[in-house]
């Protein structure tokens, strides 16, 4: 871990905090109301606000998670630091791709 990774991880963490809280509230609300898939998608499809919200969420997580994973791989496995870098970059790309796909799936009209 160096200062560059540290700054990126802490900044994305600070961003994820409020986004996560809102996400949890939204989920609780949807479950409380007993929303069906149609109810959920009816609210998210075509919404710029949800697109921006979840787009930001996915982006922040796609940076935050790989950095944390990298530390765990370096400290708890015998992989070389360079291998750890490559593995987590790959993981970040997967998260970004799957996340964007999921966001698109619920916000595209």
């Amino acid at each position, binding site marked *: 871990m160096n200062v560059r990774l540290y700054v990126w991880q*802490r900044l994305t963490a600070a961003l994820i905090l409020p986004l996560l809280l809102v996400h949890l509230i939204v989920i609780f609300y949807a479950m409380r109301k007993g929303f069906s*898939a149609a109810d959920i998608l009816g609210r998210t499809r075509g919404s710029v606000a949800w697109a921006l919200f979840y787009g930001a969420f996915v982006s922040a997580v796609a940076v935050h*998670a790989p950095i*944390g994973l990298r530390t765990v791989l370096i400290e708890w496995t015998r992989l070389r630091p360079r291998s750890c870098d490559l593995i987590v970059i790959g993981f970040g790309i997967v998260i970004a791709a*799957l*996340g964007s796909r*999921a966001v698109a*799936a619920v916000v595209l009209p």
Partner: protein
Amino acid sequence: MTALWLAHRTSALWLAALAHRLSGLALAAFLPLHFLTLGLAISGEAKLEGFLRWSDQPIVKLSEAILVFLLAIHMLGGLRLLVVENFTWLDGQKRLAVMAAAASLLVAVMFLARVF
């Protein structure tokens, strides 16, 4: 030897750090699945609806409660770090760590209560 190894690794703050790490790993493993589920919506509501029905089962609800617990722990653990690193040293940190764990448990229990 395990008892010796564990000797000083039972402080609330060390356990908080471990919980933070383990919950992070679990969340990283869960995320791709979570995104794939939502991708089901691409093929139309039917598939997502089918999944939402499947996720009505108790075992799935329990797993979701555990995930919310992990999320809460990881978030509160991260918050602890942001506070430790950016604000004046607090003396009551161990108490705070335990309270954070309790808060996470509460959130998870509330989740469970709502879904059943």
